[in-house]
């Protein structure tokens, strides 16, 4: 549904501080479920990370774990700028352990900083939201074969923590981005472009790869739906 209101998010929220040359700040958080759920079909399954991530004046955040959700939402609310907070319906029911610190009243996470969820030396997996779970599962499987993955949870789509990704790629020499959204002009496309333009390019031993949702509207039948997103 966010497309019904997207004009206000972009034209009335994101651009106003700039158009008014600093006279009118817009401290607001737009939050809601984003991306594919289960069985809700094409009109209710689109990932907007790339659409919102495209626009200057917005901050775009995509939490994965419970501590992400809490820390990033608090930071988003305290931020004096428009923040789009992309949640995931299927993650609402997933339990996570939370540290003492994470449970404290004023626990904040900085917007714009990614987190290394799992250390590794052989390949960097970069992801956001629900796909982080997928990457960690894949890392566990690959570990049995002796391949150690470094899994990066982006936490923020915009501004993108390119430095964290570059540092990791300069260590592992291999990069795979994983997202639920469509491939063209997506989050992975942006990450790959940045790696190309930055210092980490010379450290790649092979072209970077994007794992994405299939380039089709989301189908309804379970077998089709399961095969439309990364597994």
């Amino acid at each position, binding site marked *: 549904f966010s497309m019904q209101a997207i*004009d206000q998010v972009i034209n009335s929220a994101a651009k106003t501080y*700039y158009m*008014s*040359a*600093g006279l009118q700040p817009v401290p607001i958080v737009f939050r809601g479920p984003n991306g594919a759920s289960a069985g809700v079909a094409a009109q209710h399954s689109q990932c907007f990370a790339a659409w919102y991530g495209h626009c*200057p004046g917005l*901050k775009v955040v995509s939490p994965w774990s419970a501590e992400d959700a809490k820390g990033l939402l608090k930071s988003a609310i305290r*931020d004096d*700028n428009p923040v789009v907070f992309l949640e995931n319906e299927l993650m609402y029911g997933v339990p996570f352990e939370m540290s003492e610190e994470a449970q404290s009243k004023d626990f904040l996470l900085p917007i714009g900083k990614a987190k290394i969820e799992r250390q590794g030396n052989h390949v960097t997996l970069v992801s956001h939201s629900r796909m982080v779970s997928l990457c960690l599962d894949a890392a566990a499987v690959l570990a049995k074969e002796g391949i150690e993955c470094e899994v990066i949870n982006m936490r923020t789509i915009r501004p993108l923590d390119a430095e964290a990704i570059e540092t990791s790629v300069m260590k592992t020499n291999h990069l795979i981005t994983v997202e639920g959204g469509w491939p063209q002009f997506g989050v992975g496309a942006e990450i790959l472009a940045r790696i190309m333009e930055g210092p980490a390019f010379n450290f790649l031993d092979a072209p970077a790869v994007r794992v994405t949702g299939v380039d089709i509207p989301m189908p309804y039948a379970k077998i089709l739906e399961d095969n439309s997103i990364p597994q």
Partner: protein
Amino acid sequence: SVEEFLNGARVVVSARTYADFTPQATFDIKKCDLHKLEEGPPLQAVLTREEGLQYYRTMQTIRRMELKADQLYKQKIIRGFCHLYDGQEACAVGIETGINLSDHLITAYRAHGYTLTRGGTVREIMAELTGRRGGIAKGKGGSMHMYTKHFYGGNGIVGAQVPLGAGVALACKYLGNNEICVCLYGDGAANQGQIFETYNMASLWKLPCIFICENNKYGMGTSVERAAASTDYYKRGDFIPGLRLDGMDVLCVREATKFAAEHCRSGKGPILMELQTYRYHGHSMSDPGVSYRTREEIQEVRSKSDPISMLKDRMLSNNMASVEELKEIDVEVRKEIEDAAQFATTDPEPPLDDLCNHIFYNDPPMEVRGTNPWTKLKSVS
């Protein structure tokens, strides 16, 4: 006798001093059409000499400012969009006199008049039109994006300002500050879906919002008859009470606004006003304005309903001001506009290092990608 004659002559001379002007007069104003209202605004308005001179000056300033903008646009010193307000001055001036500066106002793109009445200066407005650093938005907004305190633009997307205005009204209610929000839109925007969504929410939550439709009979080049199934814009709020009035009469607009403001402040919820007005220019500077209406029609409005002439005639025929006095105001206004235009054409353009500033508020400085990967530009809040 000679003595009597001389006495008579002295009386005639002294009638021309300021002390002999009528300090205030009461004028009959047209009755408003009402929708879901038992009573409307009063049928008479009291105008003091000071108020009259002030309204005259402000309307004349808007008029001359817009005409100067027309000139500068044709000289290609102003570029892009330019939607002029001449003809509609009574709306902006009348509304402002019916509310306080501490109230809030938001409108669409035909906003230069409101930028002035809400506290902007002619200099800042003109320099914004010419895209200079002395502009009210430092040259970064342009014609459609001017802001001042409690004035939220200047909005380019048709109808988008209406939900925003209701949001401001919601903030007023939430904060309990007895302020209201005036939320303007045109006859074209009146058919926008988001406006009806806004009517619903504003009414449900009894928001202190005055919705005002400036009906200038044309949405770009489309006449109201061709655009709207119902041209009774004051009734389109359905469950929201409404009034329709003569938007060319500044006193009518003032009294209706006062009435509406009282309605909102007393907690009764939103109210809708339709101001019947007229724009002399086309929709924007790229529209000559004569392909969908006749020159005769424009001329007729100018000669019979011009808001500035109407006020002037009222004041002169009631001895509230002299012809010379008003001419003097004209001269002062012309000078103010000339000075502002001079500033607007000579002030330098914004510095390039302002390009990436004002992306975020209260944020540490950051880098912004330039047109290529090796160009990193600086951005501060």
